[in-house]
């Protein structure tokens, strides 16, 4: 009996114990769900349908994770993205999708069958312990009271056989625990893995939705660039032309206003150039091509005046627009920290959890500065928000006076 096999057995038992608890939780879900069904049907249920589907998916997702962890491998999921604005049609589509049905089926089985099966299985190794303890009970119990076990123990002789019974239980447990664990896992994996057809059809739905969202994001991004060009370089250049015109006029009329006007024109042209340079850089920072996102972020962290630590994990290839946006967010935030916060350190963390079905890029920028940062129209934070919201991402800023300032940005990166 190798140590390895013992360890495996122990893992199987642990799995069964966890599933026992989870099974009771599923039972709880079922009961709550049944209680809410009439409510769902009679009260415009489609409005809260996503509220039901969301925890269901979360719970099924946890089960996928648990079952993947035990024995490795991963279970795919194929979900239609939840609608952001609950229209009846999309809610119904989500509610009656194959994946929801499958998850519900799993939930029923998990809640009703798993507790019984796991409880019975776990009872076997416990019986081993119990059997070994029976002589002690017999000794402690009042005389004449039989102790229940495979046979009633009423004498020392009967109690003496108990280690043998324990051995029997142990043998059964030795085979049963891994067997049931294997079977339970197999059934759960089968129930939680979307069918090929379902996976394909849901993938198509998901892709269609994400493509539409990507196109939206794309046009929002184009509008943002158009706005920036219009408000920036274009207006500056009009000013240049205007000032040159005024200078020309002064020269024609032999008044002495030409020189200051020329100087102002030059300033405006320099402004326009600087604006264009920033814009061009922000649209797609050239360093992203050379260093990738992680390398570019390290460069930002390295060039920060305030000591900056960078944690990056789980990054994978993302669309160029998303990488530029992520880079822009970090660069802009770090610039803000340097300019305004009087911080002594700033921590940037950029993580992407690929098992997350929504595939979000999480960016957190935290400094120990004086806080009190507010979002002003046209300011740096507003710029970050505009950029992030073009991708349907979110920006959260907490900056109490006295600090610390924390900015959390989530960017969908799985277009």
């Amino acid at each position, binding site marked *: 009996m190798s140590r390895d096999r013992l360890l495996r057995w122990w893992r199987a038992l642990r799995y069964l114990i966890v599933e026992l608890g989870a099974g009771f939780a599923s039972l709880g879900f079922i009961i709550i769900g049944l209680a809410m069904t009439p409510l769902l049907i009679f009260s415009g249920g489609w409005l809260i349908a996503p509220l039901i589907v969301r925890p269901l998916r979360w719970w099924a997702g946890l089960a996928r994770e648990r079952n993947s962890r035990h024995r490795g491998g991963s279970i795919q999921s194929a979900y239609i993205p939840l609608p952001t604005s609950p229209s009846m049609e999309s809610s119904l589509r989500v509610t009656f999708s194959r994946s929801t049905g499958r998850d519900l089926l799993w939930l029923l089985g998990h809640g009703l069958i798993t507790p019984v099966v796991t409880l019975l299985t776990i009872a076997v190794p416990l019986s081993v312990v119990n059997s070994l303890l029976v002589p002690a009970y017999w000794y402690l119990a009042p005389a004449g009271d039989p102790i229940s076990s495979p046979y009633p123990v009423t004498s020392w002789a009967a109690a003496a056989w108990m280690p043998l019974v324990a051995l029997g239980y142990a043998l059964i447990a030795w085979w049963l625990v891994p067997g049931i664990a294997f079977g339970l896992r197999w059934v759960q994996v089968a129930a939680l893995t979307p069918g090929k057809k379902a996976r394909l059809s849901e993938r198509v739905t998901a892709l269609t939705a994400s493509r539409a969202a990507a196109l939206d994001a794309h046009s929002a991004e184009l509008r943002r660039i158009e706005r920036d060009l219009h*408000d920036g370089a274009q207006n500056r250049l009009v000013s240049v032309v205007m000032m040159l*015109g005024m200078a020309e006029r002064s020269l024609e009329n032999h008044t002495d206003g030409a020189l200051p006007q020329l100087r102002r024109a030059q300033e405006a042209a320099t402004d326009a150039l600087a604006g264009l340079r920033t814009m061009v850089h922000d649209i797609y920072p050239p360093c992203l091509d050379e260093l990738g996102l992680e390398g570019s972020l390290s460069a930002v962290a390295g060039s920060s005046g305030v000591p900056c630590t960078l944690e990056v994990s789980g990054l994978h290839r993302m669309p160029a627009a998303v990488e530029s946006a992520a880079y822009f967010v970090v660069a802009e935030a770090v610039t803000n920290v340097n300019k305004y916060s009087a911080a002594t350190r700033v921590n940037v963390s950029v993580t992407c959890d690929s098992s997350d079905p929504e595939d979000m890029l999480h960016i957190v920028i935290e400094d120990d500065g004086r806080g009190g940062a507010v979002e002003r129209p046209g300011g740096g934070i507003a710029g970050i928000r505009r950029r992030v919201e073009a991708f349907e991402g979110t920006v959260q800023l907490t900056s109490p006076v006295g600090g610390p300032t924390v900015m959390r940005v989530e960017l969908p990166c799985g277009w």
Partner: protein
Amino acid sequence: MRVVIAEDDALLREGLALLLRSEGFDVVAAVDNADDFLALLDDTDAAVLDVRMPPTFTTEGLKAAETARRRRPGFPVLVLSAYVEDRYAGQLLAEGAAGLGYLLKERVGKVAEFVDALRRVADGGTVMDPVVISQLLSRRRADDPIRSLTPREHEVLALMAEGLDNTTIAARLVVTETAVSKHIGNIFAKLGLSTSDSGSRRVLAVLAYLRT
């Protein structure tokens, strides 16, 4: 002449005010949004409006021009825009072309012409940006009578549509006024327009023709 400027870009706004003041206009106010301009409507003789202003940065200036001209019919408005579109021109012209101008922003660089345009608008004339006119001219059908115009007549038509008078057209093309009158007579005959119209009515007739 009292003028109000509405332009949201600070540098441009101040620049325009400086330019118009140095050209002898009385700049009553230079504001950064349409509402402030409309509040000043009764204290002014003409307005220079940017099309894109807060809050939505789309066509606030055009709407303000329409509102102003509904409250004060014929109120002279010169609309400036980073780009011009003939449908915006059509929207502006829908309720009369007198005292209306629509120019690309960079036209302010030719100070003399810009100031002249503003004066003409203030005097009830019409000024259209050449880009609008060329957009209109380029969208003609194959069987259009405009195709029968000579290149010179074509040039004259475009300048006429911009709102220039015969003298200015003659000066621009370096020909005599008599020659311009003759060209115009030919154009009107070929397009079937009435020659009796003059000034902004003439522009309107030409624009109306181009927009059909």
